[in-house]
């Protein structure tokens, strides 16, 4: 008998393996469309009670038992099923214990051993179910219900989990150890199973469940706070939309200032550097080097064939800025070129009533004339009007300039 059972079990598991892909499709998508399956495969799976048809004409669904097996094996976090039916488990224990006692009383020890093994199985299964439920709960807590998208859904999931924890705890309260002890009576083996073992399992589970409950409450609080933030912001915007002139009153007159608004004025400004501190010299030099490289180099670097001794000096700034006096000189030159008539610099100065004093004006004219390219200088001629110094030979005092086209 048991050999036959064994054989058919193995055949069944092998069949499951052979149709693994179909089963996983059904697991992931919730159902398999009927037409995708071979007729014989479909019949086989339906007959084995792996798949079932919830209503006529519907797609095929995976049976709960197979789904639970997969959820457990895959540690799927979507698993929300928690079995909290302690009462029926307790009833089973009670019945089996009575069986054992009766068999022992009548001297049918072989039967009593079978019942006892059965009871042990049920007890272990009960503990296992509880631990499984707790594991499922923790799995969900630990990823903070990450498998649902929105905050509201998370809050609902959390509420479901809390109700499951309460149901489990309520179920555990049904276990009354005095009753079980009485039931076990004198039998040492029953007492061992029903009292000692069960007590250990229950106290572990109760403890874990209360921790889980605390965590769930904390999470719920956090979710609500997060949702509260969004609402706070939206509420504020709505409020400002309705009352655009609303100004919150500063609470600073109140004798007790709320901590929130007690924010002092900034007091500290950056310190200045001390160039006389020799200990800081390396840092300062480094900073200086960075400042220099930060300036864009205006001159292309040239390699000198025969470099002189290197002296560091700031490169002379070449500044070309339009200055009014130079523009005046240019217009003076242009006037001469346009008219073709020689005009003395002072005459022009007077005619245009230029604001600069005559000496600067003359210097500027000479300077600009000298600055002209040679080809232009050939076409223009500059005559210096003046006289040599009466006492010191070699000195010539310029009184005026005459500029004319050659």
């Amino acid at each position, binding site marked *: 008998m048991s050999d036959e059972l064994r054989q058919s079990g193995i055949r069944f598991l092998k069949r499951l393996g052979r149709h693994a892909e179909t089963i996983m499709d059904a697991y992931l998508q919730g159902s398999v469309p009927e037409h995708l399956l071979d007729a014989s495969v479909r019949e086989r799976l339906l007959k084995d009670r792996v798949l079932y048809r919830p209503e006529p004409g519907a797609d095929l669904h995976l049976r709960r038992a197979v789904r639970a097996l997969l959820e457990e094996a895959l540690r799927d976090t979507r698993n929300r099923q928690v079995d909290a039916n302690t009462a029926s488990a307790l009833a089973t224990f009670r019945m089996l214990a009575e069986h054992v006692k009766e068999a022992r009383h009548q001297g049918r020890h072989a039967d009593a051993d079978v019942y006892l093994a059965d009871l042990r199985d049920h007890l272990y299964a009960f503990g296992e179910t509880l631990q499984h439920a707790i594991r499922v709960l923790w799995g969900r807590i630990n990823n903070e219900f990450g498998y649902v998208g929105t905050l509201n859904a998370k809050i609902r999931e959390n509420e479901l989990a809390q109700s499951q924890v309460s149901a489990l705890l309520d179920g555990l309260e049904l276990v009354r150890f005095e009753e079980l002890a009485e039931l076990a009576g004198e039998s040492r083996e029953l007492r061992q199973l029903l009292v000692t073992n069960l007590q250990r399992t229950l106290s572990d589970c109760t403890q874990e469940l209360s921790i889980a409950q605390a965590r769930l409450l904390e999470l719920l609080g956090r979710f609500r706070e997060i949702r*509260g*933030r969004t609402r*706070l912001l939206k509420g504020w915007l709505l409020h400002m939309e309705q009352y655009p002139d609303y100004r*919150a009153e500063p609470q600073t007159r109140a004798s007790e200032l709320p901590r*929130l608004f007690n924010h002092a*004025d900034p007091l500290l400004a950056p310190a200045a550097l001390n160039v006389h501190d020799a200990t800081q010299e390396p840092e300062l030099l480094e900073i200086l080097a960075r400042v220099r490289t930060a300036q864009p180099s205006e001159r292309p670097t040239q390699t000198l064939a025969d470099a002189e001794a290197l002296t560091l000096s700031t490169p002379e700034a070449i500044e070309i800025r339009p200055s009014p006096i130079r523009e005046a000189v240019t217009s003076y030159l242009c006037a001469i070129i346009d008219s073709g008539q020689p005009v003395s610099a002072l005459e022009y100065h007077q005619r245009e009533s230029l604001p600069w004093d005559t000496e600067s004006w003359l210097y500027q004219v000479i300077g600009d004339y000298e600055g002209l390219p040679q080809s232009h200088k050939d076409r223009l001629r500059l005559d210096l009007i003046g006289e040599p110094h009466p006492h010191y030979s070699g000195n010539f005092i310029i009184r005026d300039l005459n500029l004319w086209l050659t």
Partner: protein
Amino acid sequence: MLSTKGQVIERLLRGAFICRTTDEDGWRFLQVAGNREQVDAYLGQLNRLVVGLGSEREEAVFFCGYCQLGEDERRVVGQQFRDICQSLTPLADWLILVQEALGQDAPPTEGTPMRLGELQTLIEDTPAFREQLGRISRYRLFNSASETVDAQIKLVFKRLTELGYLVRPNPDKQIYLATGKIDYLYEVIRFIDAAEGLELEKRAEGAVQGELM
């Protein structure tokens, strides 16, 4: 080099907010009661103290407040209150925009990363977000005159970084982190809500239900 204590004191006196995101070492330092007493003792000489906000167990953000409030201090605090109230609306508007554009459940809080490029693409693709960003960037807090999403969003992020609401840990990357100052903002709104009895949450919920109807 300054010790952590020195750095913390310096930052506090500059008016900075110290949170885990902006200065993790300093934040951890201030979590320890003994350290905080030392800093308080130092700041006490300048009529300052450390103010911490957050839960009892772990305070999320620290800043520098006054020990004694005289007339001058009250004036400063009052001015700051007005400043922050003026920036509440633009900031709330911006926080909602970020939340909605990124499709998140919650508006940014301390430590929330924001990728400028990602946000920009999302906003550019949705006319409603574009309009919202345009409105936000024209608030006086940001004061943008630009018409393009690119310039507007960059300006908004730049201003928020200057004001200490965001930090940019790596200057080569356009990834910003929200600081504890944002959490401070929620506290301010919550406080005004409670003090003035505005019932903002209820109002928002009512509006959502109205929309659903």
